[in-house]
């Protein structure tokens, strides 16, 4: 427990840890202001296909809609912010030289690595939850509350979620978002154990995420057949909590797939680091 506390102190004492939070705050506020100014235009475009057949009344562009809208870009900007810290968790100690003082202590390397990993996950959860709060609180203040109408671009139909159900669904959605981002944190963490600088893990993580996203969307059958095996395919499973009915089986499958990834990556990291010669 001490180890974990100290890793938290070390991580959250650095100003670099707060870059992600600052970036999120800036981007979300800007996005919400722009959306407020362009409210009618945005919703008109989103609902264009439905407006041929229906007259639509009510506060569609409410805080919950804005939150969902911003969260849809979660897998684009959040991975970088996660890698910024998770990718530095282990390699940063090598760069600064503190690894020589750290690893000669009685706690085993496995315990130290585990404490660092949990800290990385804690940061990841904090970042995603912060994103949620930044979306929801100013969103509700600027746009008000209401039912959540979700219309998938390019597809007919919509999902209508009553206002009373939204808070709990959003809570589950954010938990799922945290769960999916732990895979990104795990990749960055693994890379961090393998090298002795922080740039490599950060770039490496982004490369992995982007390449997997691109592969999963390539318009060829071969790549399409790979899609079920790519973790990026399941990174958006949080959206399923905003479906009606909630597809619990699909969610469980996605969560299990991502969980296995995280566990596997951490296992590799701890074994690799446990056997690593510290020459720096």
């Amino acid at each position, binding site marked *: 427990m001490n180890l974990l506390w100290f890793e938290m102190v070390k991580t959250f004492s650095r100003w670099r840890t707060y870059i992600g939070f600052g970036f999120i705050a800036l981007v979300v506020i800007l996005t919400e202001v722009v959306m407020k100014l362009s409210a*009618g235009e945005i*919703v*008109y475009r989103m*609902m264009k*296909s*439905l*407006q*041929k*057949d*229906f*007259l*639509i*009344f*009510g*506060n*569609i562009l409410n805080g919950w809609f804005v939150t969902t809208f911003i969260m849809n870009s979660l897998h684009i900007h959040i991975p970088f912010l996660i890698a910024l810290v998770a990718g530095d968790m282990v390699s940063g100690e090598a760069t600064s030289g503190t690894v020589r003082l750290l690893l000669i202590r009685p706690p085993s390397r496995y315990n130290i690595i585990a404490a660092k990993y949990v800290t990385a996950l804690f940061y990841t959860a904090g970042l995603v939850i912060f994103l949620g709060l930044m979306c929801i609180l100013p969103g509700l203040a600027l746009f008000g509350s*209401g*039912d959540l*109408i979700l219309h998938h*671009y*390019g*597809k*007919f*139909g*919509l*999902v*209508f979620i*009553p*206002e009373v159900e939204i808070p709990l669904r959003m809570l589950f959605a954010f938990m799922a978002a945290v769960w999916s981002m732990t895979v990104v944190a795990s990749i960055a963490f693994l890379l961090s154990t393998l090298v002795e600088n922080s740039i490599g893990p950060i770039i490496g993580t982004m490369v992995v995420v982007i390449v997997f996203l691109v592969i999963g*969307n*390539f*318009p060829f059958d071969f790549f*399409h057949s790979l899609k079920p095996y790519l973790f990026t395919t399941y990174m958006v499973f949080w959206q399923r909590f905003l*479906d*009606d009915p909630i597809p619990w089986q699909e969610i469980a499958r996605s969560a299990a797939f991502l969980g296995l990834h995280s566990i596997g990556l951490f296992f590799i990291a701890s074994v690799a680091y446990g056997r690593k010669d510290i020459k720096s």
Partner: protein
Amino acid sequence: MRKLLLLVLIPFLLLPGRIQAQGDATSYLDSLERKYSGLKDYTVDVLVHFDIEGFKAPDMQAKLYWKVPDKMKIESKRVFFLPKEGGFFNPSLFKKEDFEIKLLEHLTYENRKAVKLKLTPKKTKRMTQDVVLTIDTDRNLIKEMNISSFEGREVKALIQYAKFNDFELPTRIELHLDIPFNESRGIRDFDQSAQKTKRVTGKVEITYSNYRVNSGLRDETFKQTESPLSREGY
């Protein structure tokens, strides 16, 4: 020569009949107009139930205000979707001067005498291709509407009525939709056409209750008649 004469004369002989038929078709709309001429406004509670594939919405409730000739307002605490075609009763919708009217047939509908009229809008700006009305001639009520659009949209409305303050107003409209939808398939099939046309079918049941008729609604009530989203009113 005789044959030629007949060929020339026949259209002239039929013309009075045709004019007569046109006149008959128009008369049905005239009857409708007369029936509802005293209806100046109404307020009604609306309940909409959706049964359309991919449309996962609960029943929606709202209060609808209507005033002659075409003012309409929806009041709802929550988001409310109202089908554009056949969603609410507007007796001045089918003005004879707006349509080319053709009498299709006389028929029996729900054990009553009825006629089928085909209405083709004169103004081409509207997407509606034509409307086929089934009118109960005994009671002067539109029982069925079949609306076709140039985009291939087919909407069929079945209407039930009850009497409120001497006016027969809809208590239930059942809409059957068969509409095309251009689904974007994403970049996967970039070598094929970007969009695939899919047909969506389903049913919308609209129930009207608690009518208040001719209560003297003021124009100010309709200041924001339409949602900013509904740019194509009907």
